[in-house]
């Protein structure tokens, strides 16, 4: 059944995030031949419209206003609801990012609709669009359908394939004027703490440290390895509780759930609460001194050894590989 699907694109540092292209991929599945309309909201985002189309959107609607320069749920909700009212779509897809998690429930509530959050796959079955999503932080999964109202889902980064970029694709990029009312919450300041812009939940490679890292200083080699592989650094609850790093890096049932292509666990024992946050990663490497550590039970490859010896060697080998290729 062909459906018209709206996709909210999300920019970070002036570029569309990868999850927005994945959302287009998801929308194509959901649209089943119907139209995929990209939505871009911001102060000056007209220029991103063409790229959105090259990744598969049929056309793009933008809403621009100085009040939308930074994300606020107040401002964005007004803009996105106006586009929804104008387009009347059968489905809506956002990325399950900080923005998507914050905004989607509000829009769903306003539309009096359901919302299927944190979706990892979409399929058409028995006349229904079926969404699969993790529950209990990935210890189990559920399949959900919408039984009343518009189809609305947020998709988890790194799980649904984006379409290949097609630079010959063209489409209409139009702007919708929306009168943005005063915002009730004002962002005074943003303190950048995240390193080099690779977001943990979107990263293709995650290098995570546990209690075995022993200190904040001990995360240095992990950060270097992450840099060499273009990945992000994460941590176990043990490392966060011991103050080796910020809680925003925590991976586990409390903390973030990640599904990168490659997860390298350094000095992490593998408590069940940590495994819940990472065991659905595509390839897992464990580095631990204790051969009995639980983490080896979920690892594809394991090295029994001191991370402070293994990680520097790994950095060297990966650097060589980069030079050779």
């Amino acid at each position, binding site marked *: 059944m062909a459906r018209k699907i709206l996709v909210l694109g999300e920019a970070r540092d002036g570029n569309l995030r990868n999850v927005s292209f994945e959302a287009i991929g998801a929308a194509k599945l959901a649209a089943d031949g119907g139209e995929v309309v990209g939505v871009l909201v911001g102060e000056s985002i007209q220029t991103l419209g063409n790229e959105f189309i090259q990744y598969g959107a049929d056309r793009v609607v933008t809403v621009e206003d100085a009040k939308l320069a930074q994300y606020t749920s107040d401002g964005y909700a007004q803009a996105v609801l106006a586009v929804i009212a104008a387009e009347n779509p059968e489905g809506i897809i956002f990325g399950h990012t900080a923005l998507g998690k914050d905004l989607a429930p509000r829009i*769903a509530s306003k539309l009096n609709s359901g*919302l299927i959050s944190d979706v990892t796959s979409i399929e058409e079955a028995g006349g229904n669009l079926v969404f699969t999503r993790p529950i209990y932080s990935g210890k189990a999964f559920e399949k959900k359908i919408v039984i009343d109202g518009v189809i609305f889902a947020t998709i988890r980064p790194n799980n649904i394939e984006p379409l290949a970029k097609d630079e010959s694709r063209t489409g209409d990029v139009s702007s919708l004027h929306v009168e943005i009312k005063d915002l*009730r919450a004002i962002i005074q300041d943003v303190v950048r703490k*995240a390193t080099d812009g690779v977001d943990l939940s979107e990263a293709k490679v995650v290098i995570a440290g546990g209690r075995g890292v022993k200190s904040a200083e001990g995360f240095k080699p992990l950060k270097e390895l992450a840099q060499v592989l273009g990945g992000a650094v994460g941590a176990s609850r043990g490392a966060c509780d011991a103050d080796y790093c910020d809680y925003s890096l925590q991976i586990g049932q409390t903390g973030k759930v990640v599904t990168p292509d490659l997860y390298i666990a350094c000095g992490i024992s593998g408590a069940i609460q940590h495994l819940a946050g990472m065991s659905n990663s595509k390839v897992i490497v464990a580095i631990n001194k204790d051969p009995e550590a639980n983490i080896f039970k979920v690892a594809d*490859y394991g*090295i029994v050894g001191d991370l402070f010896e293994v990680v520097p060697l790994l950095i060297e080998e*990966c650097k060589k590989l980069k030079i050779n290729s």
Partner: protein
Amino acid sequence: MNIYVLLKRTFDTEEKITLANGKINDDGAEFIINPYDEYAVEEAIQVRDTHGGVVTVVSVGNELAEKQLRTALAMGADKAVLINIEEDVEYGDQFTTAKIISEYLKDKDPDLMIAGNVAIDGGTGQVGPRVAELLSIPYITTITQLKINGKNVSVTRDVEGDAEIIETTLPLLVTAQQGLNEPRYPSLPGIMKAKKKPFEELELDDLELVEDDVAAKTKTIEIFLPPKKEAGKVLSGDLNEQVKALVQLLRSEAKVI
């Protein structure tokens, strides 16, 4: 100040998940206050201790949630409300829960509502923002700091590792992120006192709702466990050789670097 905490009873984080008849098997499982809601309870108590007022903890669920509500009372909350939907709602979703809570709160004049940013079971993070929207009150999710000065509020929000400093006003709903505070353990006198604190149990009737008003918008059609991960290769030999072998395997076998 009139403070409300939205609390959910969840599986303990250390529990393994198994299925029975296609459903999550809760036989013999340990239940706790959702860890993010524990931060919410702690923050509410701290706000009350600084600014005065009353902390009411609200949960939607069945009679078993009384235990977690009593724990919140033992930590220092003043009142608890259990909205028991076991008899009335066969299948609910986040719309259902948010609708029920907002109907309960609509005539309570809350100044501040605090929820966890996500429950570790369903993991949607929808109910807090939905409740705020239904009450037409602003909300800020994943906060790590809350400062209140009269009606003015300054909040620090965790956004994928960055921190946003946001100014807003009461009434407000916030959702708690890890790092907001260090939840206290209930003290023995606290546990004794909790037994005598006001505990109200309500059903849909008491909120002038019928099942149709809160009917779910989505439905779960299947629950399954992820395929069991086979333990992989533990490499051997000289460390140098192991690392070389690992990089080769990641390159040519796993194709991830």
